[in-house]
């Protein structure tokens, strides 16, 4: 910041003796006349009757002579970034704009004229952006641009981001004008990823989804883990990583009791294990001439095409539920009729 605007000349005459007036030696005596002499009366408190000299009139305060406002001497092509470098309160003598602020209700207030910026408290109260003009921003950004790094080109789309770096970790930061910089909501960490990014076999995937429960969204195949138990963000992040690892490895384990899975617990309809297949075999065997000599595989191969169609239609009925119920049931009916060679 240049000091040229001061336009003062400060020169100290070094070759003269400098008399410095100290407070211990007043130039002339300020004591009352009765006190002057060798021995002064001890006066601990000022007596009211004592008066120094004649009574003077109430002195009107002399206002310092204020020079005209600075904005009158500003040129139109000056650098505003030097005039208003940082955020400060509104200074009417520095801002070269004819700003008004305030509501005038009638001709009696301020003679009906709009309220000007001189001694306008409302203009001083509100935040101003004189320190953030486009020129300011350009200068500041030019100075801090060297700390920025470019985004890698391979991650140009959402799919690419998902492919290379599948987990999305969401955190929040809070900035208030409160006495404390802490905000306990900042401890929350959220993990998000698609299950296709992890390797599973059929059992592991189903077990993972069952273990995850409400955290798994089947529509988008996404798992969400929200960690907010611990007081610090790093602790919650570590806990979420631990949870993810535990979930993954638990889903690959096969416990003893998983063997007891019944048809009601199946995640999908497996016709090969179903009672429908057993029933079909019984019926087909019974329809043959020599039931005991017939092998189950050969029976199924015999009517392979029809059995396959029956299998497909009954699987669709079981899996799709109410979506195409009418159509599926119709197909099922037709396939059953063709399989057993019946006619309606």
């Amino acid at each position, binding site marked *: 910041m240049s000091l040229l605007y001061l336009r003062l000349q400060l020169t100290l005459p070094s070759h003269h003796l400098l008399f410095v007036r100290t407070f211990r030696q007043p130039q002339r005596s300020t004591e009352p006349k009765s006190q002057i002499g060798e021995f002064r009366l001890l006066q601990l408190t000022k007596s009211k009757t004592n008066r120094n000299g004649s009574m003077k009139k109430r002195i009107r305060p002399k206002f310092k002579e204020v020079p005209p406002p600075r904005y009158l001497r500003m040129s139109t092509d000056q650098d505003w970034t030097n005039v208003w470098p940082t955020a400060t309160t509104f200074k009417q003598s520095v801002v070269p704009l004819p700003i008004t602020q305030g509501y005038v209700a009638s001709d009696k207030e301020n003679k009906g004229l709009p309220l000007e910026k001189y001694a306008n408290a409302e203009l001083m109260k509100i935040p101003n952006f004189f320190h953030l003009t486009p020129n300011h921003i350009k200068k500041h950004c030019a100075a801090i641009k060297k700390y920025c790094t470019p985004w890698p080109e391979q991650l140009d789309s959402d799919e690419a981001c998902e492919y290379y770096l599948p987990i999305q970790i969401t955190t929040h930061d809070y900035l208030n004008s409160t006495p404390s910089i802490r905000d306990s909501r900042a401890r929350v960490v959220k993990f998000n990823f698609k299950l296709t990014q992890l390797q599973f076999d059929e059992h592991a995937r189903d077990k993972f989804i069952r273990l995850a429960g409400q955290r798994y969204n089947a529509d988008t195949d996404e798992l969400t883990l929200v960690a907010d138990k611990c007081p610090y963000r790093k602790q919650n992040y570590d806990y979420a990583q631990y949870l993810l690892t535990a979930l993954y490895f638990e889903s690959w384990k096969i*416990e003893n009791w998983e063997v007891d899975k019944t048809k009601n617990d199946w995640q999908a309809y497996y016709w090969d294990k179903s009672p429908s297949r057993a029933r079909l075999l019984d019926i087909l065997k019974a329809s043959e001439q020599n039931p005991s000599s017939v092998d189950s595989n050969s029976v199924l191969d015999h009517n392979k095409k029809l059995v396959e169609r029956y299998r497909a239609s009954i699987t669709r009925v079981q899996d*799709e539920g109410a979506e195409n119920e009418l159509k599926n049931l119709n197909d099922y009916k037709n396939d059953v009729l063709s399989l057993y060679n019946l006619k309606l």
Partner: protein
Amino acid sequence: MLARTVVNQIFLLKTSQIPFSALSLTCRSITTAARLKKQLNVAATPRPHIERPSGSDELYKRLGVEVRGHDPAVLESYERFVRLVSTELAVQLVNVENPPFFTERWTLLRSKFAKKKYWREYEIRTYYKKFNFKHITGSTADTFLEYVQRNLPEGIMMIVERVRLESFRDNLVPPTSSFSSSSTTTTKTTSEKTSQEQDTS
């Protein structure tokens, strides 16, 4: 008719066991079974091995900066400022959202004592503005946020939401086949281990 239908899922199973999509009862949830069955046999996408040594720059897929204040004019000036900064620092500003303001109202007595006929209405309004950025690195984000936060006007609150990208840790691979297809003895020990873990945790 079967345990897999939506209605049966809700009434036969406990609330915790019902899959989330079944609880919502939208027309999408009815095909949960079919969708889940298709997903069971989905092959995992091959995971490329990415070297991310410790200390490397973070990668933010999304950055959400929400500002809240009582004066909409101040927020609008701040928006102009942030737009200029994002063009100068080459930060991708996707859009600026203006969620509707929230107003808190009280109706209080005008007088200290009695005068029940005369009341006064007070209200406090909070205006919101949300800046959405995408594809921004850690150092750029820190620089941009520090500059923008230093110039945050008085009485404005800011909430920053960061969505960071990370890869899975290297240990998340399927365990070796000998372990997964183990006999009952090893499954017993694993169940013992899990119970031990539960005791110690």
